[in-house]
């Protein structure tokens, strides 16, 4: 499978995503510079974490205007797989590719820590390798991860099963105490209505090797690879 990792000025999870895809999963991967307008034939585009353009205005607010984002939007509209991690999730929301916004964490501080996530849906291309309800352990690292959407949008997300990951306790219960940033309904990751664009605040690329604390993040990338193999099989 061919991955494209977008690099904006200020992006810093680009090398981490590249490392996991290339060294750990042996997939084909290339960087996509923000000024490019062509995705180089990628099967899946990753918008990694960081502070694109410094994020001095609002996280992701400038990145949405980057030349590459036009190509990403077209790609998504054609059903292409797009994974936004952390700043990537913020950019997808700012771009309108996903509903809602990510506000400053409720306690106003940056948080870098491990959290538990419950996989609410195992039928997306990003979660097919998981069991429904499976509890995953992943790191977060953000100051603006407090997911917000109006009541109507939230109801719609829930009704259509677009909430893929929720912050939960170690035993899978959705509790206030397990919510690290104040996100509504403990939302940690959502997909668009069509299910081909996922945004998530936790960093799956940071937990793909036991040596660095865990390997649950592999499930996200393995889901993508599996889904592309299935797609090939269907052709």
């Amino acid at each position, binding site marked *: 499978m061919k991955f494209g990792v977008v690099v904006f000025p*200020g992006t*810093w999870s680009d090398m981490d995503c590249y490392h*996991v895809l290339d060294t750990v999963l042996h997939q084909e991967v290339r960087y996509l510079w923000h000024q490019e307008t062509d995705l180089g034939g990628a099967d899946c585009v990753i918008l990694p974490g960081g*502070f694109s353009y*410094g994020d001095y205005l609002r996280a992701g607010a400038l990145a949405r205007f980057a030349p590459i984002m036009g190509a990403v939007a077209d790609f998504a509209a054609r059903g292409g797989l797009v994974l936004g991690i952390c700043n990537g999730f913020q950019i997808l929301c700012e771009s309108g590719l996903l509903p809602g916004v990510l506000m400053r964490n409720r306690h106003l501080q940056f948080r870098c820590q491990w959290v538990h996530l419950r996989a609410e849906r195992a039928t997306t291309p990003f979660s097919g390798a998981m069991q429904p309800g499976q509890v995953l352990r992943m790191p977060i690292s953000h100051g603006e991860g407090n997911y917000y959407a109006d009541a109507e949008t939230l109801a719609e997300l829930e009704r259509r099963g677009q909430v893929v990951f929720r912050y939960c306790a170690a035993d899978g219960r959705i509790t206030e105490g397990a919510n690290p940033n104040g996100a509504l309904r403990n939302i940690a990751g959502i997909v668009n209505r069509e299910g081909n664009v996922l945004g998530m605040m936790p960093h799956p*690329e940071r937990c793909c090797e036991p*040596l660095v604390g865990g390997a649950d993040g592999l499930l996200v990338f393995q889901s993508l690879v599996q889904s592309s193999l299935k797609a090939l099989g269907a052709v």
Partner: protein
Amino acid sequence: MIDQSTLDEIALSWEEYRLIAQRLGREPNPLELGLFGALWSEHCGYKNSKPLLRLFPTEGEHVLVGAGKENAGAVAIGHGLAIVMKIESHNHPSAIEPYQGAATGVGGIVRDIFTMGARPIALLNSLRFGPLSEARNRYLFGGVVGGISDYGNCLGIPNVGGEVVFGPPYSGNPLVNAMCVGLVEADGMVRAVASGPGNLLMIVGADTGRDGIHGASGLASRTFEEERELRSAVQVGNPFMEKLLLEACLELVQTGWIVGLQDLGAAGLTSAAVESGAKGGAGVEIDVLQVPRRETGMDPYEVMLSESQERMLVVVRRGYQDRVKTLFDKWGLHCALIGRVIPEPEARILEGARVVAAVPLAILTAPPLYRRQGAPSSEVARLRAYDLSSLPDAPPGGMSWSGALLALLASPNIASKRSVYRQYDHQVLINTVVPPGGDAAVLRIKGTPKGIALATDGNGRLCYLDPFAGGAIAVAEAARNVVCAGAEPLALTNCLNFGNPERPEVYYQLEECIKGMSEMCQRLGVPVISGNVSLYNETAGQAVYPTPVVGMLGLLPDVTRHCTPAFKAAGDAVYLLGADLAAGATTGPEALAGSEYLAHLHGLVAGRPEIDLELEARVQQLCLEGIRQSWVRSAHDCSDGGLAVALAECCIAGGLGFTASALPQPGRADALLFGEAQSRIVVSVAPEHALALEERAQTLNVPLIALGAVGGDRLALRPWVDLPVAAAQDAWEHGLERAAGS
């Protein structure tokens, strides 16, 4: 034309002024005098500390770039790779404007690392504040942590460790020492040189403004009473610009288009140009009109001495300037051609066609060096002679020993620093194997089986009581910390935070401390590869504790064989290395000298700390061998708070209890539980390996005590301490937040 106020502003003395005029053979003009003020400052010229710094051992088989040679030191770690590292202070700016002061401290040290062509892979921060009971200290603490968090997080460099310590002498004069560690291919390092007449000088990054003028001479090289008037000397950071510079410069060093790279730090363009010219054996010519500015009407003096952040000086091979510009354009960075390398060994400053300053580099870079006469203060002599055996052997106020342990675990100096480091991204770059919170952080080196361990350490209270022992202990503890992680100490960087060296008691502290550090370095075979000196840390005539901060690098041949303080399994045997059962120095009143127990519970700073350099080396050797042999399953430095605190921390980290079956004969219970005798490590060992460890200890002549076994859910050191691990954990985990009122 020269008056006292002019000299005061740049912190030069009349004697120094006369020396400048004599060496030049004429009076310097105001701009030239400004150049001297910057380069002859303590901050840039090390005029008080250089003669003492020569005592440090700086050679070693792994050393590639030794102390004082470049922006940072470098050591080889095999596989053709090198680690580049340095620690630096930003104390004075942080005292005035904590958020920007700390943020730009991070920015400065990161530039020192990528200036050498190395990718920064880790940050550490060693911080000191006054007690959190004072509102001003809470403000400084919050501001400094916020500044480090925002700047470092934006750069995508993990912040993997450090210290946060509180003590009354740091009220009003916090210490903010930032350390950065980089990774580079050993043959790919870049030097900060301007050589080859005809080569070009380009400046890249932020435009130059009026911020930070006299930062080096004014802020960092004298004491100050009225802080507000100096606020304009604090710079404002832009971490996004720094991130662009970092990526662009790392791309640039791969091209072969440049001969040198130098960041603009203290004393701005003046220091960058002069130092790289002097190192390159050439001269530099700069036209200030070509320097991009963010303000109008700046004169040559302001341009040359601005400390605007996020700027780099690039020495470009003639003919390559367009290619360099294209590369920076790609990153959206503004660069400008501002001068050239000239054959005459002088700093020549032009304003258009007019020469506004011309000074030989040899004079600019040779400040007078002062060797002063130090003397201990009578106050310290009195505290040192204090008869600790006169203290009652009981916690104050009818507190139980278990209560005293809980109080220590909750004290801001010992309690978990999680509420601080969870604000720092400590995982980005996915190398973090052991995160902050243990004795040392461990990072893997991708593409190799190796790992590095990093720790900072320095105990100002011990140095105050005995600067020689305190200096040796700073080195010993930092080394012990990386040893406890399973790493062999390889090299260190250091930041020396002291008061005004013109006062004999401060000079005495500085001299003795450096001697103590040097002897411990010699004994452990660890060279000093870089460092920084921060003097004049005083407010209203009160100096901070003499505080050397040691940043230690350790190497693990196999990173999977790292070790942590956490107890691993019930039934494991727990040993204390470095002490025996007989009542002696480790349990007598002298073990309480300078301890956290005395300071926190009795409000007393007294006694004379000691360290046996030979024993220290043998204890470290035994612990390291034990970990490498896989006998030792956990290891924890026994330091602040003594044995009871160390055992509690091992229990908390592992979620397991411990019951003592044998403890040293107490000369005194307080000394047994909370004494801080040096050279001790708590280890746990699987029962089948216990004998092997004991035999090896005997061979190496290291005393040890089989303290008891891991198990249950209580920490029991009967008859004194018996409490649930959960209670210890609650005190330790939330102590700092409760004290900070957050």
